[in-house]
């Protein structure tokens, strides 16, 4: 049960955080200039966006949950199971960013989920 809660936080909070950061980045727009001064102004600009902070908070929650689960579960179990992020990412990107997920990508995500199920059976 403890594992389920922590995996939920790793996958859902981690992915939601990435979606928030992605939303913040899309708000700034594409960057074409990679001089240190423009990169600094880009970083400062992104820190003014609430989506960025929400994203950082959620990704931190995901990272700390990862550390917590690694304190009692094997790396070779935790990392493969957290591949569920591919499924969470697809659903989230569709709902939140309006991305269209084509059939091939859904097939890949389904295969990932089958793999995660098999790894879950190998839990000790």
């Amino acid at each position, binding site marked *: 049960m403890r594992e389920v809660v922590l995996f939920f936080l790793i996958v859902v909070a981690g992915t939601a955080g990435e979606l928030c950061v992605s939303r913040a980045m899309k708000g700034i727009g594409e960057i074409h200039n990679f001089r240190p001064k423009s990169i600094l102004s880009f970083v400062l600009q992104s820190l003014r966006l609430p989506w960025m902070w929400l994203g950082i908070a959620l990704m931190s929650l995901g990272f700390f949950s990862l550390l917590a689960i690694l*304190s009692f579960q094997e790396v070779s179990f935790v990392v*493969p199971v957290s591949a569920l992020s591919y499924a969470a990412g697809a659903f989230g990107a569709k709902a939140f960013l*309006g991305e269209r997920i084509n059939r091939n990508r859904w097939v*890949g*995500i389904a295969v990932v989920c089958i793999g995660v199920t098999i790894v879950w059976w*190998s839990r000790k």
Partner: protein
Amino acid sequence: MPLILVSIILGPLGNVFLGEAMKGIGPVTSARIHDLAPIASRVLASGYIWLGIACLLGFFIAHMLLLTWADYSYVQPATSLSYLSVSVLSYLLLGEMISPLRWLGVAVICLGVFLVGRTSPSTTGAPSRA
């Protein structure tokens, strides 16, 4: 090609070090702030945590450098191999015993991630849509 190898090795290596650090701390079973504060200070004092974070940062930089010239649809399927390398590194460095069933699951995940990455990286058309 070397950059992609760096990213396939460094990312999983980072996770392996995080695992080593947290196993040294012992099971974290409470979610109360009161109990978490002393754990957090022990985590921060662990050398392995910083080694792990350094590897993950290195991975992130390698990944970004790679994406400045390589197609995402080329990079992402290749990084599916990191699920294989994390298992190999856990076995070699942490001595985790990986059952045939787990190897099978990892192989299926690699295949799935490979398939996800082989699809088109941009589906929204104009980037301003979001």
